[in-house]
């Protein structure tokens, strides 16, 4: 499927200002139908504004929104086949769970028996049958979130928008809900667009991620692409921890404070930064063939499945399995293998 068919979404040359703040800068995106797409970025990066533009809750200054090949930029929210799960869920407090879920169908004057059937089906799918007659204030955070999901999905939207839907859940529940959300999307085969600032969440659920900063998309791709090959310092740091090493290009390698590092490719700059993830640094008892650094453990953080080691020189952050024990002061060889060093495109 592609972005022309039903549920495919295209954003062209989006721009949005709030007063003097340039909230969205020249964003163009294509989301094929049936894809789980995530807008990832820190708060204030414009991701929510972009989502609201798609929902029809905000008008772009420039740019077009195309849904299934049709231009919907000038359609009001009430006439877009797009539904939203709001950050606060925005459930109607005076309505029961059933009536909340039925809201969109009632707005469009569906017959009662069809409402019963469709609402019943969604409630069952999300395990909410028992809650049908409760009011939102009698629900837990996780249940509210599922009601909000059911309320949007019952309308069978071409695109489902999710605005930080997990932010009100505790960490344990969040991890579980992320997996459920991913499964749900795959089962329904609908286009989901998620906004989040949580890189783990983005990687768990998404087919593709767009990393945003200051209103612009700086990198997009599959979670693996974005994680393994961050193009800028910001992306490298935002998606999990990364060690950033700066240096000068000398003989196809990099002269750094840690010593000379061989690289797989010659950087496009003469002075710049490379990144390496803590779990990509290999540990050796004896010096490796190249890119070896003698490190000294400064601090050990136990995380259950592994250790986070803060090493001198650096501070370099290394992740190591717990089958070997470490304590501060231990000395060990670190290998920053050339194929693990990512050359950042930003000088």
């Amino acid at each position, binding site marked *: 499927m592609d972005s022309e068919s039903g549920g495919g979404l295209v954003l062209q040359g989006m721009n949005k200002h709030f007063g003097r703040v340039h909230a969205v800068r020249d964003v163009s995106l294509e989301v094929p139908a049936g894809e789980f797409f995530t807008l990832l970025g820190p708060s204030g990066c414009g991701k929510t504004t972009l989502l609201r533009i798609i929902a029809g809750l905000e008008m772009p200054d420039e740019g077009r929104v195309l849904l299934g090949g049709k231009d919907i930029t000038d359609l009001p929210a*009430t006439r877009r086949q*797009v*539904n939203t799960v*709001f950050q606060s869920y925005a459930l109607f407090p005076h309505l029961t769970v059933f009536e909340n879920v039925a809201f969109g169908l009632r707005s469009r004057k569906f017959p009662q028996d069809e409402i019963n059937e469709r609402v019943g089906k969604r409630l069952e799918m999300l395990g909410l049958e028992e809650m049908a007659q409760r009011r939102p204030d009698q629900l837990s955070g996780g249940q509210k979130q599922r009601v909000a999901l059911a309320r949007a999905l019952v*309308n069978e939207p071409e695109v489902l928008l999710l605005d930080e839907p997990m932010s009100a859940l505790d960490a344990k529940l969040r991890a579980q809900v992320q997996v459920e959300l991913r499964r749900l999307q795959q089962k329904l085969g609908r286009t989901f667009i998620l906004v989040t600032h949580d890189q783990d969440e983005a990687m768990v659920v998404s087919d593709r991620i767009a990393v945003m900063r200051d209103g612009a998309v700086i990198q997009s791709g599959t979670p693996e692409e974005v994680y393994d090959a961050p193009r800028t310092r910001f992306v490298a740091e935002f998606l999990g921890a990364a060690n950033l090493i700066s240096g000068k290009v000398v003989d196809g390698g990099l002269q750094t404070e840690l010593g000379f590092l061989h690289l797989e490719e010659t950087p496009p700059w003469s002075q710049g930064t490379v990144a390496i993830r803590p779990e990509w640094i290999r540990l050796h008892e004896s010096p490796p063939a190249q890119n070896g650094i003698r490190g000294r453990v400064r601090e050990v953080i136990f995380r259950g499945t592994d250790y986070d080691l803060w090493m001198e020189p650096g501070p370099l952050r290394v992740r190591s399995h717990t089958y070997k024990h470490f304590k501060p002061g231990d000395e060990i060889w670190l290998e920053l293998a050339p194929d693990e060093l990512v050359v950042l495109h930003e000088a």
Partner: protein
Amino acid sequence: MKRKMLVWYGELTTTRSLIKRGLLFLSPGMLWLLAFLVLPGLVLVVVSFASRGAYGELVWEFNLENYKRLAGFGIFGWSADYLVIVWRSVWVALVTTVLSVVLSYPLCFFIARRPERTRYLWLTMVIIPFWTNMVIRTYAWFLILAPELPFARLAAMLGLVSPGSPLYPSAFAVYLGMVSMFLPFVALPLYSSVERLDWELVEAAQDLYASRLRVFTQAILPQTLPGLSVGVILTFVPAMGMFVVPDLLGGAKYMLVGNLIQQQFGASRDWAFGAAISMGLMVLTMFSLYLYRRKSKGAEVLV
């Protein structure tokens, strides 16, 4: 006896001293209410069963004549006069309340959407009329509705009144006076609800294809109901007993129950009948509040 200590919002105390303190703080207010509300109320009940003597004095003789008279059974047979006045009072109070609510909604949304700096200026402007005495404010309408001024001229041009006559006394002038009197009573409590409105619910309703009417009834009305019901009660109850405005702007033909009561205690010197009408008004008000409470409970689960 072993004293039982307890912690009351961080203060270590005993049940006895809490009760003692409560009585100390409550008794002035209680005494006030007892002396100036409960006792006069009881006197009113007693007086309503007495009758008027030849010179307007009270004759202490238990009878139901006053209530019969209020229900329309007079010396010349049954007439609906008093009931019409009561009904008209309910109607005027109802229309005043509805008009005030209809005007308050846009006003409150307007004020709530002003930048914070000017918002309180607008609110003050709603309150400013309170700084002036009610009677003086009502007389001000005389000026505004005077024959020489544009409103009356316009009405004359349209043939609504004869040229050179003012726009009062009339039902229109009564409603004008009443609504301007009571608008702040609805607008202020309603504003406190509108200010705290969760706009995300409005957006959620739009996102779920709701029509404008549905956005109002499902996303705005339920959220503003607390302020609205306070405003409705604060308007409807005093509007039922209002007599200054209808007296001045409505003239003799537009008598309301408030004027009727005033007349009994004043010109007619029939305190007993006045007391009976007052009782009738009180019962009617209580009954309306009861109906309203039942209805608004229903409105909260409005589907």
